[in-house]
């Protein structure tokens, strides 16, 4: 039974003949597909409307929206609305994010402060921001300040919670290193705590941006005379559906551009994570 039998079947590992070239074309194909998916949707939409399978009263054809878009741009209406809304976003964002960041660092470092503040934070955090809007308007009036404040409140909690978590997650050994090498207070806060928490802080900022847009449009629906929210709301009231869609496209575009900006900023200040993704 132990006669040596030549194995008859030979398996050979496959050779990689295309290698890197195939990888490149894969990547290029991916980009092409990403560009074409919205185009395909738009074409399908246009065709469905032309074939009257889609009600043009609610879903006006993209071609007709483009025309309206042009008109709104030319009248200066769009520029005005975008300027007003962007100012609100920026002001509100800064007013919310900066104190949240500073407070988050303190909360992350001290268990006692955390124990004191956590119940307050978690009681206020889930309150829908729209629900506080009337109170905010009562205190800050109907002007711009009340819009800044309501956006700031929304941004504040998300940045606070994420900054705190970021500091808590820093490996304790880094604090030991700072102590062992007699780091100054400034070095400790800036180069150990803040930089250690940056990745998590950016998670908070990105989430906050989305929420800021929601709160912005809502606030503009309820109490504003200009802005993108107003453009959308007024269009609805006069049944100018194309204009309404223009507003929607602009909001989505704003959100897209702002999050791209945040991504870029993140790459800039967190270079040590750049090629991790």
């Amino acid at each position, binding site marked *: 039974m132990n006669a040596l039998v030549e194995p008859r079947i030979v398996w050979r590992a496959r050779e990689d003949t295309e290698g890197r070239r195939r990888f490149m074309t894969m990547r290029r194909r991916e980009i092409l597909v990403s560009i074409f998916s919205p185009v395909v949707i738009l074409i399908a939409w246009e065709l469905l409307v032309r074939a009257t399978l889609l009600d043009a009263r609610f879903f006006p054809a993209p071609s007709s929206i483009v025309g309206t878009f042009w008109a709104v741009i030319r009248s200066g209406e769009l520029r005005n609305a975008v300027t007003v809304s962007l100012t609100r976003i920026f002001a509100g964002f800064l007013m919310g994010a900066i104190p949240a960041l500073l407070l988050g660092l303190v909360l992350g470092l001290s268990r006692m402060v955390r124990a004191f503040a956590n119940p307050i934070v978690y009681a206020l955090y889930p309150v829908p921001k729209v629900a506080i809007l009337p109170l905010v308007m009562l205190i800050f009036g109907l002007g711009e300040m009340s819009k800044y404040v309501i956006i700031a409140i929304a941004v504040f909690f998300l940045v606070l919670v994420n900054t705190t978590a970021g500091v808590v997650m820093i*490996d304790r*050994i*880094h604090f*030991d*290193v700072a*102590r*062992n*090498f*007699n*780091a*100054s207070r400034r*070095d400790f806060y800036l*180069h*150990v705590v803040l*930089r*250690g928490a*940056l990745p998590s802080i950016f998670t908070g900022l990105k989430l906050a941006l989305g929420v800021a847009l929601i709160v912005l449009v809502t606030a503009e629906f309820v109490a504003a005379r200009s802005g993108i929210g107003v453009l959308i709301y007024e269009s609805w009231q006069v049944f100018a559906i194309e204009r309404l869609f223009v507003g929607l496209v602009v909001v989505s575009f704003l959100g897209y551009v702002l999050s791209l900006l945040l991504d870029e900023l993140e790459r800039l200040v*967190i*270079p*040590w*994570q750049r*090629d*991790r993704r």
Partner: protein
Amino acid sequence: MEDLVKRFTLPTGSVVALDRVSFQVREGEFFCIVGPSGCGKTTILRILAGLETKSGGEVAVHYHQNGRPRSAMVFQEQSVFPWMTVEANIAFGLRSQPMPAGTRRDIVRHYLDQVGLTTFARAYPHQLSGGMKQRVSIARALATDPEILLMDEPFAALDEQNKLLLQQELLRIWDESRKTVVFITHSIDEAVALGDRVLVMTAQPGQVKRVVPVDFKRPRNIPELRRDARFGELVYEIWSALRDEVLRAREGRG
């Protein structure tokens, strides 16, 4: 030259981690501490570094008042700041010492060279291997030119080849500076290869079991050393002293 002495005696509170541990380290000595895990060897180091307080006894470090830091710790590799370049990591300990920026740059460059990371000066730690990160940690401590170098199982996470390489490099650097080193390890082999004396600790509560002198000539070549019959004898001697303790530690946890 005065004789540097450190003395420990530390009965702790409810859980006694270290029980009346006493030893002296001489200036310029490479002193190793081995013991079963949980025997408190890291605690000794942390007390020496001022990162932890003692509950009793006396710990004294005699040092020269010449502006050099009393001690610097080589932490385990994950202690390297992931958000700083290799350069910035090494310079971190120097930030608290007043000196012109040029001097600081020169020091950093010198230690980059010493640990062979010059080409990686601008790299971030995640681009480095574990062994390279450990070199950064070593250079960061050396750059501050401390009187005492404290090392907490610096090579524990490395593979055999890297470990041997770094041990040899550490010996080379040490031969040049002859700093006082307190080196914690769980590897008997490592302790014998590096140390002038090896302190063997008992299982919890940590006590001094015995101190074994290692009198190999320096500079040492670790692979050559391992071929020496006396090397095996020393390892065996320390292992014999340690064996009961390791078994006790296992039972205690059982």
